[in-house]
């Protein structure tokens, strides 16, 4: 997290973010095509390329109709929208690029990824704010479960570090204004937290039906076993009292997983470092996990303290982090905790990772509009 390099900061009250530095889209897409896409699409193509290479999944004529893509984004191509709007104001409507719409609308990340891999199965995109990619992974899980695809390229992407993006969140007073100390600005659960830090990037997973994965000898990283959704139906941006909507999303995910709350070892919290949100999510976790939360046995961390908040990309990234936590049996920390908020009473794995038995883990995502999503993962033991 550092001072923003992407645009002129004149007049901006928030002057820092967690930018993807030195990103070269031409490593993932050719020059002619790259100009037709917003940065969020570049990120999705980059993360998909890494995920596909890591998984070893090859899409070919024998399976392409059974491989789909589900990639969400909260906003889509803010960069393209701003550029083309400026062009229109300066030169009139005839100056609007023909690539304005396809370069900026949310589902074009999923569209381009499908084109690149010739993945001709289900193709969808969620636009549920900061829950977008958790919903994409959960919905992809359901698509596979109900037999509509054998594999899904799923997750989310976001590139909102633009004048309107950062300026817009700043106008809501949602962002940390710790301009003088960006590295310590994102401090979930700390008593001096003052808002989130905008991040960017994409988090993409390859989800496969278990027998399909086994048959091709896939290197299985973990299992998605539960997915729960809920709405706060309360306020457009504020969380319901006691994180009641989050509580129901977590319980719904545990129910689908068919496990009890006591079996969860680690929770990757949504906690973005906002004063209200972190405390309410903590309360919701207390209400779901009871004594194990309060006696500090349950490990809870917000990795946004290290990555910033990827908005529509957050759930995808954090699903990946949660899988890595199970794979390596290490709970990642919440950084920048100096003194806990008395309202936050859990074991947040403060400031350094800890080795831990993690067989089951849960990842939370909550978004504006009161839209919630929780995913439950199981460690892969080869069975």
């Amino acid at each position: 997290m550092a001072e923003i390099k992407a645009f002129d900061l004149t007049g901006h009250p928030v002057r820092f973010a967690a930018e993807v530095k030195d990103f070269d889209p031409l490593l993932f897409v050719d020059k002619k095509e790259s100009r037709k896409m917003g940065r969020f699409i570049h990120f999705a193509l980059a993360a998909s390329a890494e995920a596909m290479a890591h998984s070893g999944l090859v899409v070919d004529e024998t399976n392409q109709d059974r491989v789909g893509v589900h990639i969400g984004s909260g906003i889509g191509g803010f960069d393209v929208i701003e550029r083309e709007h400026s062009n229109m104001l300066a030169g009139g409507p005839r100056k609007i690029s023909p690539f304005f719409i396809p370069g900026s609308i949310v589902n074009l990340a999923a569209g381009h990824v499908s084109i690149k891999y010739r993945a001709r199965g289900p193709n969808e995109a969620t636009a549920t704010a900061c829950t977008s990619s958790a919903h994409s992974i959960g919905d992809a899980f359901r698509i596979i479960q109900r037999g509509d695809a054998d594999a899904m390229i799923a997750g989310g992407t976001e590139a909102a570090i633009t004048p309107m993006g950062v300026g817009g969140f700043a106008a809501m007073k949602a962002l940390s204004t710790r301009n003088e100390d960006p590295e310590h600005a994102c401090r979930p659960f700390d008593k001096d937290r003052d808002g989130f830090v905008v991040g960017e990037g994409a988090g993409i997973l390859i989800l496969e039906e278990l027998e399909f994965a086994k048959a091709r000898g896939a290197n299985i990283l973990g299992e998605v076993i539960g997915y729960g959704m809920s709405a706060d139906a309360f306020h457009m941006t504020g969380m319901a009292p006691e994180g009641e909507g989050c509580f129901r999303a977590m319980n719904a995910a545990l129910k689908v997983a068919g496990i009890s709350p006591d079996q969860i070892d680690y929770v990757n919290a949504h906690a973005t470092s906002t004063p209200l949100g972190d405390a309410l999510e903590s309360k919701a976790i207390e209400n779901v996990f009871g004594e194990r939360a309060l006696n500090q046995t349950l490990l809870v961390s917000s990795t946004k303290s290290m990555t910033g908040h990827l908005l529509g990309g957050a759930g995808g990234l954090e699903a990946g982090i949660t899988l890595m936590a199970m794979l390596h049996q290490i709970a990642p920390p919440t950084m920048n905790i100096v003194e806990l908020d008395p309202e936050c009473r859990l074991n947040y794995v403060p400031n350094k990772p800890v080795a831990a038995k993690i067989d089951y883990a849960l990842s939370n995502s909550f978004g504006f509009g009161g839209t919630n999503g929780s995913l439950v993962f199981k460690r892969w033991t080869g069975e």
Partner: protein
Amino acid sequence: MAAVDEKVKQIIVEQLQVDEAEVTPGASFQEDLGADSLDVVELVMQFEEAFDIQIPDEDAEKIKTVKDAVDYIEKNQKGK
């Protein structure tokens, strides 16, 4: 006149990311140079910008090859 020819070629090479040698007078944007319909729209916008002209949609539809573009621009350039 050669200047128009050269500039049109440069714009095509840049926009469509093709090799300069492929940009022959008879080359069709869509048939030979890998453009789709949106690429052609953008290409026409670039010609407008570079030569400070307005190409109405009904004329733009007729610009299909490199020669079509050069001829049109030469005919319609201001002060020519």
